[in-house]
């Protein structure tokens, strides 16, 4: 009897996983082009080429370079950050419900933003009088949201350091801290003026309309090192999925790998959230979709989730911009509307069949 050649089968499997990644990149590029050409002002594909090669007219140059492109890149980078952080957190916490917000970042960031909005309102008197003060306030809100996110993350990681960096400790501490901050947000909303209240609520809808080149640059400088860090640890993450004790027996320093991984994922999430607000669902659901397609090996799961997340958030944002045009919906609302049915579809289709690869 001829023995099956296992190594060949495995190589084929690896090739299929790489093919999936390439497919996602292709779809992402197509959606990217579509996102640049659609919108209130008409832009054509040839306009893109002309502008990118420096020969376009001023108006389409302005629209493409300063409005559409930063927004497209912001969607890609934010999706990449949220989905890869979600994939890493799900592995590190061995919990399919883990998401970038598991350590309470959404609550903490919302609190930070609300805090800055209420404080600058009461300190600066009439907020929103001049453009300059409005811009200053916007940065203040961003900064406060980021600082509070990292305070909450740091607090949980310190607790974990003392009580043992187990998934249970981190998840429970995250729930506790998250609800504490949510209470804080409610309190701030209660004391806020109508204008401030509106600003707080509006901030909490994730929205890529705030995108500019500055944030895109900061995000790319931060995210690529983090993504490479995740990839370099993917074998350790894979070992941790089978339990801490087993991972230690394979030479993985379990607590340290978990703490540093959570820190990196939280950092990426905190920056995205403070720039663009809370964009739900991407970080939770994209890793699941990808896992269903190519399996749970972190070496492939992390980059594939990152790219899928980028594509998915761009798609959502493009739909959000065009669905009820000229009204633009915040993308945070759309991600759930698109993601939930897609995920349920995959869940039902995959029932009893496992991964399709």
């Amino acid at each position, binding site marked *: 009897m001829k023995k099956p050649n*296992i190594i060949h089968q495995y190589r084929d499997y690896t090739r299929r996983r790489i093919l999936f990644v390439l497919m996602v990149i292709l779809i992402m590029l197509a959606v990217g082009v579509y996102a640049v050409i659609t919108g209130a002002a008409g832009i054509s594909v040839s306009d893109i080429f002309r502008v990118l090669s420096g020969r376009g007219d001023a108006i389409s140059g302005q629209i493409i370079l300063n409005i559409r492109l930063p927004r497209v890149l912001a969607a890609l980078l934010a999706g990449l950050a949220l989905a890869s952080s979600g994939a890493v957190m799900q592995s590190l916490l061995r919990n399919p419900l883990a998401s970038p917000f598991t350590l309470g970042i959404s609550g903490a960031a919302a609190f930070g933003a609300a805090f800055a909005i209420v404080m600058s309102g009461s300190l600066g008197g009439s907020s929103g009088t001049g453009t300059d003060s409005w811009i200053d306030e916007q940065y203040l809100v961003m900064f406060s949201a980021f600082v509070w996110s990292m305070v909450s993350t740091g607090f949980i990681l310190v607790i974990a350091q003392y009580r043992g960096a187990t998934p249970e400790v981190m998840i429970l501490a995250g729930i506790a801290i998250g609800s504490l901050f949510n209470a804080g947000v409610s309190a701030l909303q209660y004391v806020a003026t109508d204008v401030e209240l509106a600003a707080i609520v509006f901030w909490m809808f994730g929205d890529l309309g705030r995108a500019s080149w500055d944030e895109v640059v900061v995000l790319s400088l931060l995210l690529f090192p983090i993504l490479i860090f995740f990839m370099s640890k993917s074998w350790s993450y*894979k070992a941790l999925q089978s339990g801490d004790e*087993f991972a230690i027996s394979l030479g*993985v320093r379990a607590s340290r790998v978990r703490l540093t991984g959570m820190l990196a994922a939280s950092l990426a999430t905190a920056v995205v959230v403070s720039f663009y607000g809370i964009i739900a669902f991407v970080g939770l659901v994209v890793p699941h979709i990808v896992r269903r397609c190519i399996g749970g090996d972190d070496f492939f799961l992390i980059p594939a989730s990152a790219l899928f997340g980028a594509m998915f958030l761009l798609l959502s944002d493009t739909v959000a911009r065009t669905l009820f045009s000229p009204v633009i919906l915040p993308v945070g609302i759309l991600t759930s509307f698109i993601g939930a049915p897609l995920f349920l579809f995959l869940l039902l289709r995959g029932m009893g069949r496992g991964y399709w690869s």
Partner: protein
Amino acid sequence: MEIHLKNIEFSYDRIPVLKGIDARIGKGEFVTLVGPNGSGKSTLIKCLNGILKIRKGAVLLDDHNISTYRSDRLARVMAYVPQSEQKAIPMKVFDAVLLGRKPYISWRPARRDMEVVDEILMRLNLEDVAMKEVQKLSGGQQQRVYIARALAQEPEVLLLDEPTANLDLKHQMEVLDLLRSLTSRGITVIMALHDINLASLYGTRVMMMKEGKIFASGGMEVFTAENIEELYDVKVHMIHENGSVYIIPNRYEIK
């Protein structure tokens, strides 16, 4: 590789669990740790390869203290098969076994890593399920996958915690036959086993543990009615047949 346990003590949160364990285990020995629940078998196994850091005493491998090993170096010498996984890992069998190559891999597995996995899958009769999900295998096959994963580390010492738990009679024997065959390749096998009949059927060497101490240690001669009654607090019948000992608890005479 000789293992020397030197007066090992270990406590969980100040509650002492191992209270001075001394033993020498030679290359290729087949050792079973038996004893009642809570006597410290699992804890001892985890201390042997540094999953738990011992408070006093030392584990020496050919006179080198394991605490001086770099973690991935130690993982190339000693492999650990945990007591049945909390839930089966969401991976294909090949990936699960390839994970055992982690101490040798930095980014991507090399050709040799693939060949080692291939060879082990063949040897353990897992070649037909190599591309299946671990969760979809039977209990006996899953246990073989976990042993295969440990063997992929190319260890000199294999530690197993209750490798026959959750298996039916035939699969228990299959796993133990497999482990026995490893010792003839020079691999030292140390396992916790709570079924004393299986231990007596296979164990070349038995270490009986009670309340964190080695209560008796040796070959078949330690399977005496007195020892077992003392160990488990139950009255037993001993049946000697064809060189094996069968231990039957006497259900009406629990001490």
